[in-house]
């Protein structure tokens, strides 16, 4: 019987376009094969978000564009363009 586990990848991109450059990345692996943590790599897994699609990652969520709150037009906070992807792996367990 198939035992499906989820891998989740978030890519933080340079613009709201999926084919823009990867600036930041996080990965969580529900199969237990890989254990990722803060500061464990200086090389992004993909050059762009589109490259992740081409490698079989399914897009789960894309960032919603929200106008700046009045008075906060010049302040900066979180990364604005986080795209969330998944892969489903059969662990066969």
């Amino acid at each position, binding site marked *: 019987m198939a035992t499906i586990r989820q891998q989740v990848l978030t890519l933080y991109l340079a613009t709201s376009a999926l084919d823009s450059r990867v600036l930041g990345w996080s990965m969580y692996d529900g199969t237990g094969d890989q254990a990722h943590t803060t500061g464990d790599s200086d090389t992004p897994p993909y050059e762009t978000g589109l490259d992740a699609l081409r490698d079989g990652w399914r897009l789960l969520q894309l960032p919603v564009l929200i106008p700046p709150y009045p008075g906060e037009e010049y302040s900066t906070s979180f990364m*604005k363009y986080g795209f969330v992807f998944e892969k489903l792996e059969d662990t066969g367990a």
Partner: protein
Amino acid sequence: MIDKQHLLNSQQMAEFVARGFLRFDELVPAEINEAVMRDIDRQAIKGAPAGTPLSQCYAGTALRHMLDLPAVQGLIQSLVGEDPLFDHDAIHVREPNEGKAQGLHADSIIDLRTHFDIQLMYFPHDVPLEMGGTLLLPGSHFRRVNEMDVAAYQNMRGQIAMVCKAGTLLALHHGIWHCGRQNKTDRRRYMFKLRLNPAVRQLRLWNTQDLEPDYQSQREIYTRNARDGGVQDILSRREPWFEAASGRLEIVNRIKLWRFLTGDNEFDVHYWLGRLENKPA
């Protein structure tokens, strides 16, 4: 008052404004590092109540010797004044062969001030890459976030793992995102952190003799001519993780802080604020 030769210069201050940190490798002599390590082992390091003038802290200890080094006095005075206030200290420990790193965060809580505290991070022993080192993200200090809100970001282009020799000091703007990286060795890793609050207005506290009279005049923009290593140039450099649009706002944040620190209220970089301030009557 420390001699001017030990103060930061304007290029260093511009680096601090732009990137939110300054790094001083192997600044502290070995005998002080070794004495501090002995004090850590003996649990002999005692802080002070928040708000105590720094001059009244750590009397007679190795840490006092470290803080009294002219170069250390000079960088402290340049950033937060001659006798800043002790906020708190902490001996940060990363245990051997940890399973994971600390989450990325900014210390304390969300902080909207233009005034800034500094955090001195002192590495009293060698820190090789496999031991982790503190991870910091240059240029993150203006981002308005509340502590661990940013723990979801595991890796960012341009992040720096503090791999260093004993005696290295970091001076951080309080807003810098950082964390303790995973320690994959069989030895404990120590880092001593000291947060300091300014007790004076942070206005031209460094050695400003190197600021030329025309350093703030508007320059031609979008040309290679702007790359001259001066203050405007330093404040215009993007970090590798800056988004295309927000990266422009980060330069505006730097302009505002530089104006605050110098009183030069027409200072600009690449005309980012001058354009917006042009409102003919």
